[in-house]
């Protein structure tokens, strides 16, 4: 295996870790934010309607 291939495979490993790491955090925190959004939207909509 050439040096160039090893460099690309290391970069692939780092990029893949970043992708799945961020995906895991976003999956957990995003669920909470989604619940919050669904709770807040009807209230905000009511506020807009009242104006």
């Amino acid at each position, binding site marked *: *295996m*050439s040096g*160039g*291939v090893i460099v*690309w*495979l290391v*970069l*692939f490993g*780092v*990029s*893949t870790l*970043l*992708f*799945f790491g*961020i*995906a*895991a*955090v*976003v*999956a957990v*925190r*995003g*669920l*909470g*934010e*989604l619940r*919050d*959004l*669904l709770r*807040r*939207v*009807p209230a*905000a*909509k009511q506020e*807009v*309607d009242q104006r």
Partner: protein
Amino acid sequence: MNFGLLDWVVTASYLAVSVTLGIWVKKYVEDLAGYMVAGRRVKLSLGIATFVATELGTVTFVYFGELGYVAGFSGFIIGILAMVAYSTVGRSGFIIEGLRRRGVMTIPEFYEYRYSRKVRLVGGGLLFLGGVLNMGIFLKFDGIFLSEVMGFGPDALALVMVVMLLVVIAYTILGGMVSIVITDYMQFVVLAAGMLVATVATFLHVGPEQMSSAVNATLGEAGVDPIANPRFGWTFVVWILISSLAAGSLWQPGTSKALSSESPAVAKRMFFWTGLTFAGRAMIPMLWGVAALAYFGPGQPTASAMPKLMGTIVPSGFLGLLVAGLLAASMSTYSAYLLAWSSVLTRDVIACLRRTDFPEQTTVAMTRIAAGIIGVFLLVFGLWYAIPDTAFQYLYLTGTMYMSGALGCVAAGLYWRKANNVGAYAALILGAIAPAGFLLLEKSRDALPAWLHSITDVNVAGLLSFFLSALGIVVGSLATQRLSPPRVMAQESRQ
């Protein structure tokens, strides 16, 4: 092929749940005001999920897989360039912060705000043209992926395309724009899980040593060094870096996510963290493509080699999960793109032919009709058009048709007081010339005089486009300061 009964059940169940949830969520925010309020309240994690989901459709996997198959590891440079560009936009707030502070919802809207309604018309027209041509190959590539993974083969391509189009248009009409937030989130989670399974399956069947040997035997140094690869080279690297910076800040479907965020600070953080996923977004499917080269050898149809590998090595059940995730990916991408381009056509082109905007109900009806017409265009164009070069380069070139002019107009509009209408027209038109020239002339290269041959090199055409656009805004503006005095923007902030 591994796609069996269990996979059909997983795919159908996921789609049913996804569409049902999309419709259920719609009741919360089905009117325009509700949508706008919801849009302005998107927080960081949800914003990242929707942003990545919008930029990750089945077509993304197919064109990156194709690049891995034809260019080996050297295509990985694209992921690095995209990560650097998007993270830089996020870190610096380049363009997106200025647009978000001014509260615009579409890029052409900024043209009217900074230049004039006519500049908005020209810019909107180019955005629509570039966007629809760009989207023109989505359906075909999605069809290729699904017919290969599900084991139907190339003969079923047209049928799969028609079925997909019907499902997507029905989903867009039923689910509506607002449902995209929740379905994007679900898609992101399911797709990430499917990608993890597919990557593990790839390494279990094709080891790094095998991939390295195949790339070395088939492509030699060009499979590892992007500068030595005749498809790429320095022109390509510089073009893709500039183009990714422009796409990061100005590609309507993606930028609209930042414009809908809670605040300019959240928009910047959303871009930064999303940018960090962009190397993986490109490299993961490319590695599958490299594995397809090692598994099948050269000589396969380039776009269908990777999907064929997935259909062969991913175990039954997990394959259904992957297909479901990809179908959902396509649905949310199509919805976002169809609605983005149809609303650009109605709001920024047709409405700008008049002095005043259409009433809201007329705009909505026209947008729906435009979405249907674009859908039919995708089918006809996808079946008829033979893509020049790789799909990736076609997509970047059609995107460049709009983005080069937009980069000049918006960057100068935000950061240079002397930018004026004439400069904006020059930037938009000159920026579109080189990509349009490539698309029109590429098939008749041999009949062209020698001095025009360079325009039929996709990388030269792409880079030239940004150069001409920059020249247009600078020279056009400086030469006509008295004739067309620059408009001074108000400093108000509409957060």
